[in-house]
């Protein structure tokens, strides 16, 4: 990378006598500061080259790719099915949402209908994941700004949900629970009970988090009016999710392009006014309440039924049939060794993850493997607006601004 390291400007101290050589001059220059890739508050291996004038940011250039693992290329190597565990490792904080977005994209390519119960299950788990995501964001953001207590409380409650995931799918983070055409495993009554308990337990906790922050004058000082972005700019930078809604743009894919069980649930989309860090914080807090609402509704509405689509050429046969049944056995072998035959075509499917619009663009030339797969990662897109939003703020705000995007480098670098 070719950055000019010696961009030096000499300012004369006396502007009235610029030609005078006798006057003593003080040489000032812009300072180039490498923040990261190893820095506790850059949320992973992100490097930002900050151009500073004193403590103020003049220009900042994010340098990405330290966590690049070639996930998109990996997708071309395996079957569609085999890529699901790889999506876990994109935004490793919220694996379920990545699974969801990917499966939705493939289903769109295959034009596959998912059974109703599976849709409800997907929505429930996605919203649980949204809660986890926002909790994680809140704890990290508060920690960045200096409020450590919130971090502990958030993680305490997040732990409950991670254990719930463990019980549901066998892993706390790398879930791989969604399947193309449905979900891997149904919710057991015990899991539903636990979730219901959590729903009763959780809303007071949200208030509790807010006690620490809402009125805290340091928090307010560090967030209100910081990193303001206008609605127009936010749209132009392609921002999405809470970052976009913070600027007053009412855009949520769950409402705008309803999918899964969302159209059957009532919920509102909180929208901010000022486009500053505080508004984005507020939106996320409100979304926690909304998520609880959505989960409650889903649990009530959900009926018994199959959890996988009945499409023998795409979905796996039930295991007990594999043991006894040649057709199921053949299906099992074909699907695992060669994958299903996707129709040739090109699709894009965006899903409203808690960070913003997580989209998968798949190009298929037929056969069991994608020809090309591109991930529209919100973290990556949001980093594009960093320079714009950080200009003129203090160096200490830089951390707040990463934080407000809720970036995860696994997703950003892919």
């Amino acid at each position, binding site marked *: 990378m070719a950055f000019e390291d010696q961009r030096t400007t000499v300012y004369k101290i006396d502007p009235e006598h610029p030609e005078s050589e006798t006057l003593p001059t003080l040489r000032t220059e812009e300072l180039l500061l490498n923040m990261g890739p190893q820095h506790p508050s850059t949320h992973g291996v992100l490097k930002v080259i900050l151009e500073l004038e004193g403590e103020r940011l003049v220009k900042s250039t994010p340098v990405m790719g330290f966590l690049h693992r070639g996930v998109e290329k990996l997708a071309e190597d*395996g079957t569609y*099915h*085999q*890529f*699901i*565990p*790889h999506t*876990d*490792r994109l935004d490793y904080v919220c694996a379920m949402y990545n699974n969801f977005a990917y499966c939705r994209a493939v289903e769109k390519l295959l034009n596959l209908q998912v059974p109703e119960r599976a849709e409800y299950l997907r929505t429930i788990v996605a919203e649980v994941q949204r809660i986890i995501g926002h909790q994680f964001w809140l704890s990290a953001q508060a920690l960045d700004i200096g409020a450590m*207590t919130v971090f502990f409380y958030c993680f*305490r409650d997040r*732990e409950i949900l991670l*254990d719930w995931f*463990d*019980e*549901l*799918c*066998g*892993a706390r983070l*790398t879930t*791989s629970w969604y399947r193309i055409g449905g979900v*891997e*495993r149904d919710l057991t009554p015990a899991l539903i009970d636990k979730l219901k308990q959590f729903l009763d337990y959780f809303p007071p906790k949200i208030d*509790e988090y807010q*006690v*620490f922050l809402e*009125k*805290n*004058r340091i928090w307010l000082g560090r967030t209100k009016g910081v990193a303001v972005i206008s609605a127009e700019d936010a749209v132009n930078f392609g921002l999405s999710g809470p970052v976009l809604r913070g600027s007053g743009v009412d855009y949520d894919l769950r409402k705008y392009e309803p999918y899964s069980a969302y159209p059957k649930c009532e919920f509102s989309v909180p929208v901010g006014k000022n486009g500053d860090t505080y508004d984005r914080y507020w939106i996320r807090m409100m979304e926690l309440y909304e998520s609880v609402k959505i989960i409650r509704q889903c649990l009530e509405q959900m009926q018994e039924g199959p959890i996988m689509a009945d499409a023998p050429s795409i979905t*796996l046969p*039930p*295991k*007990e049939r*594999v*043991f*006894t*049944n040649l057709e199921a*056995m053949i299906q*099992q*072998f074909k699907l*695992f*060794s060669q994958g299903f035959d996707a129709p040739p075509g090109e699709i894009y499917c965006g899903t409203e993850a808690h960070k913003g619009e997580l989209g998968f663009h798949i190009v298929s030339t037929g056969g069991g493997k994608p020809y090309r797969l591109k991930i529209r990662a919100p973290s990556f897109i949001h980093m594009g607006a960093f320079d714009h939003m950080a200009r003129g703020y203090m160096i200490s705000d830089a951390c707040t601004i990463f934080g407000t995007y809720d970036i995860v480098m696994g997703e950003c670098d892919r």
Partner: protein
Amino acid sequence: MSVMALTKKILQAALFYEIWDAMKVTFRHMLHRPMTFQYPREHRTIPDAHRGALGLLRYDDGQERCVGCDLCEAACPSHCIKVISAEDVTRPLQRYASEFYIDITKCVFCGYCVEACPVNALAMTKMYEYSTHDKRSLLFDKNRLYDIGERHLEDGKKYLYAHNQEKNVEESREYRYYFPQSVAKATQSAPKHLK
């Protein structure tokens, strides 16, 4: 803004009211039981569905379940499984895995191999403490895998039940055909020349 409200606000600001508010929450938590536990001495209860280290299972009569079909190798997204199979000389037509390796350092614990296995020879267990100083020992070979399967047989079975791979009923162990090797009884009996 009324005078009252303004006064209250000034007062609150002067007294750092929000700190008292927050401290209230903090102090209340002093009365709670701690959420944390002391790990090496205390262990988490691991749910049945947990995807831990892989093990190979045997049938109740001690026969190896694995028939060396290599489907796990095909299903594995991280290419960490290697199977070499051969014909069992003592049982004609019977295929088995003569060598079976799982590079657990590469494994992503997705459980696809278990899902793929047409005889449920693989299962994930609750074993997660196998850290070592020697990386080479993390290439689990057939013996190690069967050993894990033996020591965590119950966990393995529970895993299979939890993930709908096998039903915890007698019928699930019946097979229509002689192939793959039947566990309890085949619904169609094998002819004499195969017995």
